[in-house]
């Protein structure tokens, strides 16, 4: 092919690429612009005191498939201001799974919890101290760290097998230890989210029953914002546990699910 042919081919290729870009990028830019507008409108509603409208707008963004801890934080704020304590705490908890070390989120969640009528069971401080990274890192970061340690482990192992000089054995052991810590932590997080999903009571007060009917005996009452563990689901009821010994059934619509991985 001569120079002219090359230039013609290159020009044709450029035209095709531009066309493909235009047809794919323009709609996506337009779509993104729509989301930006929705978000800014929701922020404006919040600042003007239209908390219910702001909550609905943020909720629409979340329901459109956006997973973002900051968006969930904003939902928590909007619901709190709108007087829906249960929903506020539910969204704060979802945000905490993605931003566990965010100080503003921690403060707001703590503040919202101070309004919960039920005394919450205390969490083990020993576990929080011993396994501090589980409470500082999000599940995503933990998985990525496990993957990176795994990759590094095999790179160093390959180097030892193939090249000289060989890296020291203690380096391999250290990397393996780091990998095991993060991999096991990630696995435990997945297991707990799947086997023991957590939820938040949404209405002001909920009667926890002994059976799958509103006419069953009331066992105890939980109030908006209380966190529960979901042990089973049947029909449209969840069997929940609050603290160590309080177990009962409540309607599924009255519980907001926290876990992101189920």
């Amino acid at each position, binding site marked *: 092919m001569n120079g002219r042919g090359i230039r013609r081919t290159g020009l044709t290729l450029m035209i095709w690429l531009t066309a493909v870009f235009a047809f794919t990028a323009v709609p996506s830019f337009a779509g993104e612009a729509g989301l930006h507008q929705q978000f800014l409108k929701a922020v404006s509603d919040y600042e003007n005191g239209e908390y219910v409208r702001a909550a609905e707008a943020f909720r629409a963004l979340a329901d459109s498939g956006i997973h973002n801890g900051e*968006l969930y934080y904003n939902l928590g704020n909007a619901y709190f201001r709108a007087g829906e304590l249960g929903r506020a705490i539910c969204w704060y908890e979802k945000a905490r799974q993605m931003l566990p070390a965010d100080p503003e989120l921690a403060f707001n969640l703590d503040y919202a919890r101070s309004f919960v009528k039920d005394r919450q069971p205390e969490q083990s401080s020993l576990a929080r101290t011993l396994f501090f990274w589980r409470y500082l890192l999000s599940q*995503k970061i933990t998985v990525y760290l*496990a993957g990176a340690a795994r*990759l590094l482990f095999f790179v160093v192992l390959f180097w030892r097998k193939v090249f000289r000089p060989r890296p020291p054995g203690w380096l391999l052991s250290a990397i393996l230890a780091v990998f095991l810590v993060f991999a096991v932590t990630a696995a435990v997080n997945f297991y707990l989210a799947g086997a023991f999903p957590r939820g938040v009571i949404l209405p002001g007060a909920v009667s926890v029953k002994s059976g799958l*009917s*509103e006419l069953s005996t009331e066992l105890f009452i939980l109030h908006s914002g209380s966190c529960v563990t979901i042990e089973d689901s049947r029909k449209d009821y969840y069997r929940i546990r609050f603290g160590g010994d309080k177990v009962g059934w409540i309607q599924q619509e009255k519980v907001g699910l926290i876990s*992101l*991985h189920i």
Partner: protein
Amino acid sequence: MKRLILIAAALFWAATCLAAEPEVRATVDRSEVAPGESLRLTVEISGAQGAVNVSGIRDFEVVSRGTSQNISIVNGQMSKRVNYTYTLMPKKIGRLLIPPLPVDIDGRTLYTEMLAIQVARDGGEQNAGRSSDLFARMSLSEKQVCLGQQFIARLRIYNAVPVTGRAFQKAPVFEGFAVEQLEENRTYTTTVSGRRYEVVEVVYVLTPEKTGTLAAGPATIECQVVRRDRSAGRSPFDAFFNPVQPVSKLVRAGAAEVTVVPLPDFSGPGRFSGLVGTFDLQVDIDETALTVGGSANLTMTVKGQGNIRDATLPQLALPEEAFKIYQEDPVEEVAVSAAGISGYKRFSAALVPLRQGEYQLGPFSLTYFDVEREQYVTVQSEPLAVTVAPASKESEVNLFAAGKQEGKAETSNIRKESVRFTGKDLFPLKKDLSAIADRPPVSVTQYLLLIGLPGIFYLVALAVAVYARKDESVARVMARQSRTALKTARRLGGNAGGDYLDSLYRAIVYAVYSRAGRQGQTLTYREARTLLEEKGCSEAFIEEVCAFLEAVEQARYGGQSGDASAAEILMRTAGDLVRRLTR
């Protein structure tokens, strides 16, 4: 001939079956019901399969109960019937209509007949449901209440026939009320219009949160009524093995209304606490003789019957700047009974006196609205006398940020205090557009891939390295042996004679094998030539190598190893050849 007759008979039979026109029919099990009672509507489709549209029924709530099929052959004629069953609950009293229902059969629409149902007017509890097996009522303890005044709502479900189970099909709605339900439902028997009923009573304590006419309920309850079912088509064996069949029935309790009036304006001293009911206030302090910097626990208990949960901290009438106050979370204990909500709420605060002196704390007061007296009532606690003695030197408290005093050395007597929150509010929104960037969580599959893929890459890379090295390793081994032989020769020196030449010879032989990528111990210079030609070496280089091998062999077997300079030349040449062969 026989065959012809048989074919004709079969065709005739098929024709009679196909000739049957589909029919639709709607029937009800009763045409008169009381308010809150349900009836059963059955739409029967004969001779075909179809779809029933019940959206036109406006006067009833409609709950589908499923379908059943019946196939029969009579006089050689097969007929098929499909029944669609619905439970209907009337929405009002009077003469209600079930309009002709369209049934779509293979693209054709047939209509059922219109049906009229009489829903009897309610004549009061004694007369209501006179002949009903089941009915339900919602009743309130008050017709008019004040805002915040609690009262009782009772949902009673009456059954004169055995019932195996009850469940809310639609639970009662108490919009505008805070609701507490009694833990256990009451069960008792009563007589209504001469008929004995078993009653299940669900008790709610309602506290209105807004004024106006509010409704408690309605509610729809599904009951499993036990009755012997003698419907057509059941075999005697079914009757023997399954003598009773529970039938699902719906009963409806209508809404009960209550008028909520606002509380009268409060114009007394102090402030209204928001409590409605009957209450008392108790104030205690655990220590009345204090020192500056010490602490005492002040407890205020609001106790009584009413909206106790809404109690807030009574006003603290404490001398200004004499005490520092640290409030604790309130503790409440509340019981819900058929008389209402009662209990107590306890507020505690730690008091730290800042100045010595004698103080009177209180009296503390609580103003609530007494429903029985229909007026605001203020209860007061007895004042508490507290004596604050001066602090010891170690715990002296300086109220002023004093500068250097004359004649005195400057010392810091400031008592350090923990920083506590003076107020709390939410941190603001996160307004950056990064808040709408999608960051999906990691799935279990992604996690397993991240963990598993590096291992797979490692195995593949290792296999590639091992395979690539297969050819190389021989060359490297031979190159290493060549260098080792050269080192040996260097170490032995030219005076070593045969051993020295031996080492040189081996060095070149191993180097040639290394170049050829093969293993070997000995080599003639013809073989060396062949190997180096295969590897594409230049003719001049091959000649050099072969000449060296020949020279070494001659020196070994010709006894010319003693010359040091010659040995030196051989050494240098061998080193150069090894370098060029093994690079």
